[in-house]
């Protein structure tokens, strides 16, 4: 029974170290404390009093005597037809960068992109938006963009740059290298091809920062075709992931999340087993997570192969008998039972491992069922062999020119590239922003940001996508295609060029549209079009190289050292190409709930044994130095439940250089140490006793488990197993009553009856409007939300989308550490079970819009109150900042603006004199450092991303989730304008509009037809801590795990 379970937010919580929530606001209000001191200090005198008095009076006088500024209203000279001031336009476009593909709808206001939403017409990314991709919107307005073409670091004009590059290219007789990330754009490929025709010595080399060459090469060996197949997660009844975080970082996480989400609805729940070392999003969502050491990840593949081979009657291969794990036998049994409906994937970049994985899938008859080898996925095509050959050529002085496009080789390849590039005469960079590579380029030809450019993509066979510009180029930049063509001596227009590609390569292969223009217009409008790829010979699996592979796997798995260090990609930072983005950095990592910082994750017992326990009160974490191959990494160590003992994990993507703000370049890059096909490294470590304050949010804003009955008598998250659910749809939906657990429905029937009892006909008559007490609640709209805990994978896309839609400020590392983060929506991560392998529940939590809200009663100025539509309204201009409401909120979802994070106050952001005064408290140690504010949206360019329909909150007010009231109002207005009733789906919240798994439904709960009403009536629905009678308007659906008996027995 769920009732025996103890849920804990983190280790501190588990061990009962965290104090209760009464000390929520430990900090005095900075200004108040200052004034307080000035007024009540023992030595405060009449002079102090006069000073304070004089300041306030003169400040008030100055403020009052200010003349109203003259505001201009400047209309267009010639108004574009599609723009109506104040009305947003949506354009289908796509994020196509570094091989990543995400189809999006771009919301623009007066020609400025201000939000990305999922494009539900996309057959790949569905309605999902990756948190990183959402962050990329801010990069458009980034101060670090290259604004002019440059020659040797000095601004130049395009003609000079083009003619100089062209003459130098023509002069070289050596090889010309075009170094790119994976290119999925057929237009870019065509441009590179035309470039190669002009310069026959050209070689195009693609490489991925995190290499997928292992799979590609393995498929070359098994199928004779060097491609990645398409995986159909929707068709798989059983998914076995072997250290492949397909929900967070592996291959196409957004597309996979969309497909996976469709099978996490309780009516067609699949089973998911994850075998991994460092806990990932996928592992946290798995029905069964089997922890292994990093060195054993590939051995597990080997073992699984042999277990299945035995059942399939195939030959086994040599195996490491010292590796023991009984769970794998169950996995093999289950896989065999789900033959043809299962999917085995591995995140290893070792070709040998992938060959074995191919064999497993072949034995399970998954090819053609859940894996389509004939429909290739193109998002990763990097070839490490070619890259190494190129670097060798460069070192040998055989390369005359390197053109870098859509990648950052100095960061990803580090010294390997830096040293080789010194021997190359001409280096041209086509980046859009300053990065590690730009300073060493002789010529910088800044590319458009992807929201300013025409582009296209074939992310997989049969899907052609276009990306259209949604804003005119902000700076003097040109599409990389144009630059490349200009080097080859042809001036092209980006629009014509991409359109021509569409006509040339797609038109003949489809029969949906009769003319080229029709095809183009519809593709641009919808974002994607499907086509039939030219017939190819179907490939078949050939079992080769197995014994060599097993030998190699076993060899690679011998890892010595004090500790094993695993390099991994975390879901929000990825390879690091967007890790200088404040929105991405401020998002708490879903697994560790740490924002901004890089760290080692380690086993909690190991941490304890080695005396590295952090101080949970001031968040001082012990810093350790890990030495791998003589190279050192010094980072704080964080105990993370689920990491095997003797293992440290550290993620890629930090330690960026040449970024616009110091805080954006935190941590250490591990690329200089990383080897492409190795992910486990033997290491030694040392501890010198230094400490580092980590911006961890796990213990902040916690809900009280403690009910009237004592310890942990409230179920904040509820779960059950599929078997129990099948017997009783309300299984697990329990509530505590008198120290016993009763089904929620019983509790509701007993406690939620009407004050007036049965409907009384006499009373009915006396009512003026014919309604009983409850009538009030059943007429008109009542907004509500339902969140399916089963579907939520905790990715954090909703959190970033909420921040973007609602102008939620960026506060920076130091503020997050002090629990001053401003997120209106957070995703709590609850653990239950063993410390070494806990089960995880993600719970998105925002304002619950309680119909009996505790916050509303305590506000002395009625700044927060209830609307007739069930919204808990927060009125910023009325708030005086007492924070009583936040104190009284049992869900801890109200946020206080401790400082002027967004420059909302009347003072100019550039005012070097005023800002430090405003943002420093009188004691000095609790300040909001004067350069930290520059991280936020103070820059006039960055402020273009602000949503003009939402107030930018000033210092000293409380704010919180409004259920996207601006979208509700807009939806209602559109319905009224159209003279029609409001339909389900007319209004969506920002979090809902980007969720890849459709976990969130929102709408009118008074309308029987809406999805949210249906979800509310589901027996699984419950309100968080509704036993205190808050009547929340957000209901959660009990998580149902497809867990089998014995899954979590030791």
């Amino acid at each position, binding site marked *: 029974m769920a009732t025996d379970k103890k849920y804990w937010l983190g280790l501190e919580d588990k061990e009962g170290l965290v104090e209760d929530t009464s000390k929520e606001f430990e900090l005095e209000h900075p200004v108040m404390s200052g004034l307080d001191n000035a007024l009540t200090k023992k030595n405060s005198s009449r002079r102090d009093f006069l000073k304070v008095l004089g300041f306030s009076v003169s400040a008030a006088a100055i403020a009052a005597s200010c003349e109203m500024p003259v505001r*201009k209203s400047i209309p267009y000279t010639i108004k574009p037809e599609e723009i109506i001031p104040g009305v947003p336009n949506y354009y289908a476009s796509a994020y196509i960068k570094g091989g990543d593909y995400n189809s999006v709808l771009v919301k623009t206001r007066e020609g400025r992109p201000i939000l990305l939403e999922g494009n539900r017409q996309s057959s790949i990314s569905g309605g999902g938006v990756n948190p990183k991709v959402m962050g990329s919107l801010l990069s458009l307005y980034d101060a670090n963009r290259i604004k002019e073409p440059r020659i040797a670091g000095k601004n130049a004009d395009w003609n000079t740059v083009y003619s100089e590059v062209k003459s130098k290219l023509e002069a070289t007789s050596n090889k010309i290298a075009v170094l790119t990330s994976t290119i999925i754009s057929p237009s870019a490929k065509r441009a590179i091809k035309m470039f190669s025709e002009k310069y026959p010595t050209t070689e195009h080399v693609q490489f991925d920062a995190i290499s997928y060459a292992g799979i590609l090469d393995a498929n070359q060996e098994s199928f004779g075709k060097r491609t990645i197949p398409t995986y159909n997660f929707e068709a798989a009844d059983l998914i076995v992931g072997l250290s492949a975080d397909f929900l967070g970082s592996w291959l196409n996480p957004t597309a996979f999340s969309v497909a996976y989400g469709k099978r996490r609805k309780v009516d067609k729940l699949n089973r998911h087993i994850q075998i991994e070392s460092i806990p990932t999003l996928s592992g946290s969502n798995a029905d069964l997570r089997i922890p292994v050491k990093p060195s054993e990840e590939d051995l597990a593949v080997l073992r699984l192969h042999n277990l299945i081979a035995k059942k399939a009657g195939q030959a086994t291969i040599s195996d490491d008998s010292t590796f023991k794990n009984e769970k794998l036998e169950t996995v093999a049994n289950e896989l065999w039972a789900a033959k043809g409906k299962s999917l085995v994937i591995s995140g290893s970049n070792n070709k040998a491992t992938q060959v074995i994985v191919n064999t497993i899938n072949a034995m399970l008859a998954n090819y053609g069922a859940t894996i389509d080898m004939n429909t290739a996925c193109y998002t990763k095509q990097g070839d490490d062999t070619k890259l190494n050959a190129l670097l060798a050529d460069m070192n040998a002085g055989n390369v005359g020119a390197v053109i870098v496009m859509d990648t950052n080789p100095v960061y990803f390849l580090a010294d390997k590239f830096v040293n080789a590039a010194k021997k190359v005469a001409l280096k041209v960079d086509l980046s859009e922003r300053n990065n590690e590579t730009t300073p060493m380029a002789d010529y910088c030809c800044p590319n458009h940001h992807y929201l300013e450019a025409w582009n296209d993509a074939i992310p997989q066979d049969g899907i052609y996508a276009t990306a259209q510009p949604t804003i005119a180029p902000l700076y003097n930049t040109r599409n990389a295609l144009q630059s490349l063509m200009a080097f080859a001596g042809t001036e092209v227009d980006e629009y014509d060029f991409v359109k021509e590609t569409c006509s040339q390569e797609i038109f003949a292969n489809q029969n949906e549209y009769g003319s080229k223009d029709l095809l183009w217009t519809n593709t641009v409008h919808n974002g994607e079009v499907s086509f039939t790829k030219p017939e190819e010979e179907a490939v078949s699996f050939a079992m080769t190289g197995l014994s060599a592979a097993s030998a190699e796997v076993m060899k690679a798995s011998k890892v010595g050292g004090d500790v094993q260090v695993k390099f991994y990609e975390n879901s929000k930072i990825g390879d690091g190409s967007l890790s200088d983005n404040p929105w991405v950095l401020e998002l708490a990592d879903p697994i560790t709930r740490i924002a901004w910082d890089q760290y080692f994750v380690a086993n909690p017992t190991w941490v304890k044994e080695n005396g590295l326990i952090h101080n949970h009160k001031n968040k001082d974490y012990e810093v350790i130095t890990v030495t791998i191959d003589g190279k050192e990494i010094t980072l704080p160590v964080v105990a993370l439940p689920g990491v095997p003992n003797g293992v440290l994990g550290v993620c890629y993507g930090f330690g960026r250089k040449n970024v616009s703000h110091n805080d954006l370049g935190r941590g250490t890059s591990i690329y200089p140490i990383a080897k492409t096909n190795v992910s486990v490294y033997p290491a030694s470590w040392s501890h010198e006793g230094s400490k580092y304050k980590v911006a961890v949010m796990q213990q902040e804003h916690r809900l009280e488990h403690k009910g009237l009955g004592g310890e942990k008598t409230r179920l904040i998250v509820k779960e059950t197993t599929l078997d129990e659910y099948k017997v009783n749809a309300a299984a697990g939906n329990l509530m505590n009553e008198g120290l016993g657990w009763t089904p929620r429905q019983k509790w509701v029937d007993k406690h939620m009856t009407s004050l007036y009892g049965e409907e009384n006909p006499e009373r009915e008559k006396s009512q003026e409007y014919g309604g009983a007490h409850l009538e009030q609640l059943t*007429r008109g709209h009542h907004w509500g939300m339902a969140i399916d805990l089963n579907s939520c994978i905790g990715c954090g896309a909703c959190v970033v989308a909420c921040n973007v839609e609602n102008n939620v400020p960026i506060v920076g590392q130091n503020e997050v550490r002090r629990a001053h983060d401003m997120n209106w929506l957070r995703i709590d991560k609850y653990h239950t079970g063993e410390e070494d392998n806990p089960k995880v529940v993600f719970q998105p939590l925002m304002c619950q819009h309680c119909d009996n809200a505790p916050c509303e009663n305590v506000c002395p100025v009625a700044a927060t109150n209830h609307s007739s539509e069930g919204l808990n309204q927060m009125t910023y201009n009325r708030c005086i900042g007492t924070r009583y409401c936040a104190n009284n909120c049992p869900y801890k979802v109200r946020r206080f603006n401790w400082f002027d994070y967004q420059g909302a106050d009347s003072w100019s952001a550039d005012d070097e004199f005023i800002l430090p005064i405003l943002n420093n408290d009188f004691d000095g140690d609790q300040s909001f450092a004067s350069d930290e504010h520059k991280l936020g949206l103070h820059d006039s360019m960055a402020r273009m991303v602000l949503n003009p329909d939402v107030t930018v909150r000033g210092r000293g007010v409380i704010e919180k989730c409004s259920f996207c009231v601006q979208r509700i109002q807009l939806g209602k207005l559109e319905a009224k304008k159209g*003279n029609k009733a409001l339909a389900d789906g007319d209004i969506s919240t920002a979090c809902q509009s980007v969720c890849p798994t459709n976990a969130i439904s929102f709408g009118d709960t008074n309308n029987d037809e809406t999805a949210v009403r249906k979800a509310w009536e589901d027996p699984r629905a419950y309100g968080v801590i509704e036993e205190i009678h808050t009547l929340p308007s957000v209901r959660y659906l009990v998580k149902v795990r497809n867990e089998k008996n014995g899954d979590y027995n030791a």
Partner: protein
Amino acid sequence: MTLNWIKASKQLNIKGLILLALAVFSFTQPVFSQEGIIDTALVIQGKELFKGNCAACHNAKKDMTGPKLEGVSAKWATEVGDFEGKSSEEWLYDWIRNWKTPVDAGVPYAVEMQNYDPSVMQTNLGLADEEIKAILYYVDNSEALNKQTVVVDNLDAEDPTSNINWLLGFLIVALLIAALALAKITKTLNRAAVSKSGVAETEGKPFFKSGFFKTLVTVIIAALVIYLLASQAISLGRQQGYQPMQPIKYSHALHAGEYAIDCKYCHTAAVEGKHSNIPSTNVCMNCHKMIQSGPKHGRKEIAKIYAAIGYNPLQGTYFDKENTSAKEVEEVFTKFIDQDKDNKEIKAATAQDYKNVIEMYDKPIEWVRIHNLPDHVYFNHAQHVNVGKVECQTCHGNIQDMEVVEQHSPLSMGWCINCHRNTEVDLGNEYYKDFDKLQKMKELHNSVTVEDIGGTECQKCHY
């Protein structure tokens, strides 16, 4: 009259007081300056017809595209007289319907007038004799009607409370003076009585030194200061009556008033979304490509539109901006504005006027925003104009009479809320069909206001 006054004051009849105030007011200003009795109905009919058929080119009082029309009947009577058996009136009617008829017939004055610059008159074949009569009657009596409406407007605009306040204030002051005088007299008499009776005079404290008086004065002063401070603080940032100079002397009175152009012809976005936009310059060009001169400022203001959008009015083409020098632009606009030089009606352009026009070349027009709401207020025009069917004038005042636009309403929260409390909602919109409670309320009270649908809740405007 006197009787009335007594009666009114005795009963403290507010209506009577107002009537009295108005009567005094109306006697001090002559209403009708014209002789004879005016047929108002005919004038109004004529005005409507004039607006619909003539106002695009003509004005009663001044020359525009067409000549001024006041006295036109008299002029034709003297110039034409009876010609070939038809009266001057008949010839004028013919001219108005189709100017070619009298010209072809050889009426000398008509032949002369056909060459009137700058353009050829349109035909109005559909006008009946009665209608033309009404138009001509209006043209000759246009002012009378204006004066009358002014008075009517004044009646409407009169704020009854202010009159009462004045009268009450006067009464209070008079009574106070009387009371003080009486007190003084009493005191003097008392003193006299006392001194007569021979009792030794005790020097009393003067009344202004008494504790009661001091307290009273302090309280009054404090109350005044607080009241003033509070009212000033509340109105901080409000700009009722704000009437800034605009870069172009654009007249709503002319466009929206005289020519009765619909507000939404230019402010299109008011129907669609949040903002009521200032029209883009290309919208101005829809009309002003043809209309190159205004009645009051001639060409120098319209030239600014041409400059902003880059239109060469002399050639009727747009400038090739890349190949046109600043000097050429300057020459074109100088020449264009100089066309007004011979027109005595229009004030001659100053050097600054030329400069202003040329400075605006190829730049968007920077209008001064009049209606500014604080950033924490969300206001949506479509909600009010499109859904609520609120007239623009309800909030913006009689824009059609404003030569220079000013902020009519205080745009304060109290003002918003008051309107929300009183304005009825049209429940006929399909959107409300499932709102049983509201529909029932409508049946019972025959009134559902914006407040009843939640229009006074915080988050309807603040988010």
